[in-house]
C-alpha cells in the first residue's frame, strides 16, 4: 500500500500537501470476524456452527505511519525504490505481529459482544436504508455527489480505512469439523 502511494507521489499524482498529511497519519484497517463462538453456546453446540446465516462482527487495528524508511524524503520524478528501502523484512514481521497482538486483544475483550451490539446495528441500518431507498426510487438517493474529497477532508469526518482485510481465521481448526461432518 505504501509503495503504491509512493509511486503515485513520485509520478506527480499526489500533491505535496496531501502527501505530507498522509505521511503523518497512522494506518487504520479493519476486517470481519466470526462471532459464532461468542454467541449462545447451547445454540452453537446444537448446530449453530453450521447454520446458514451471517454472523460476523469486525475487528479494528492500526499500524504506525506508512513505512517509507529512506524513501520519505524522495521528490517527484525520482525512481521508485525497492521494498527493502521502505520496509525491511524484519520490520514487516514486526508490523505483522502488531496486528496479531491487537486482534488477539480485541477478541479477548470481555465486552466484545457488547461492543458489537452497539456498533453493528448502525451498520445494518445504513445498508438497509440505502437498499430500501434504492428499491423505492429505482435509483440512488438524490443529493449525492461524486466530488473527490482530499485525504484531509475525508479524515475530518471520521476514520478512513486504508484497506479492509478478510481472513478465514485459523482454518486449521476447520479440518476436524469437515472430517466429522462430511
Amino acid at each position, binding site marked *: 500500500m505504501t509503495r503504491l502511494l509512493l*509511486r503515485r507521489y513520485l509520478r506527480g499524482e499526489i500533491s505535496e500537501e496531501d502527501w505530507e498529511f498522509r505521511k503523518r497519519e497512522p494506518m487504520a484497517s479493519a476486517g470481519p470476524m466470526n462471532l459464532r463462538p461468542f454467541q449462545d453456546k447451547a445454540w452453537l453446540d446444537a448446530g449453530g456452527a453450521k447454520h446458514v446465516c451471517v454472523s460476523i462482527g469486525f475487528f479494528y487495528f492500526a499500524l504506525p505511519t506508512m513505512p517509507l524508511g529512506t524513501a520519505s524524503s524522495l521528490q517527484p520524478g525520482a525512481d521508485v525504490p525497492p521494498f527493502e528501502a521502505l520496509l525491511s523484512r524484519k520490520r514487516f514481521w514486526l508490523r505483522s505481529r502488531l496486528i496479531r497482538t491487537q486482534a488477539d486483544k480485541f477478541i479477548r475483550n470481555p465486552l466484545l459482544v457488547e461492543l458489537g451490539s452497539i456498533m453493528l446495528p448502525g451498520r445494518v441500518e445504513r445498508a438497509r436504508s440505502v437498499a430500501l431507498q434504492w428499491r423505492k426510487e429505482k435509483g440512488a438517493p438524490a443529493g449525492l455527489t461524486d466530488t473527490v474529497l482530499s485525504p484531509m477532508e475525508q479524515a475530518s469526518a471520521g476514520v478512513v480505512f486504508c484497506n479492509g*482485510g*478478510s*481472513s*478465514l481465521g485459523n*482454518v*486449521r481448526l476447520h479440518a476436524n469439523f469437515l472430517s466429522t461432518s462430511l
Partner: protein
Amino acid sequence: MPTFFLPLFEFLSAQLDFLLPRKYPIAEKVADAPTISLVSITTMLCCRPTELYLGASTSAQILELVVHWDNNVFDEALITEWLDEVKNAIDYYLGEDSVQTKL
C-alpha cells in the same frame, strides 16, 4: 459514533486445503486409496460497487492471487499495477529468500 469510510480495497487470504480437503472420501478409517481428488479450486465472487478486491488462497502448495474490481471505477492499468505490486511484495517478504529473516 464516528463515521467510517468504507475501504475500497479488501483482501482475502486463506489456506484452502484445510477447508476443502483434496482427497475424498476423507474418513480416516477408509482403507482404500482416495477415489476422488480435488484438482483445482477457483474463487468466484462479485465485489461491491467501487471496490477493488484482492484475494489470495493456497491449495496444494500453490498460492493463487485473484483480483475483482468495479469496472466503472478503476482503469485496468491501475489494477495491473496493484496486482504486480502485491505479487512482488509477496515474493520479497514471503518468498524463498525471506525464510532466513523470519525470527
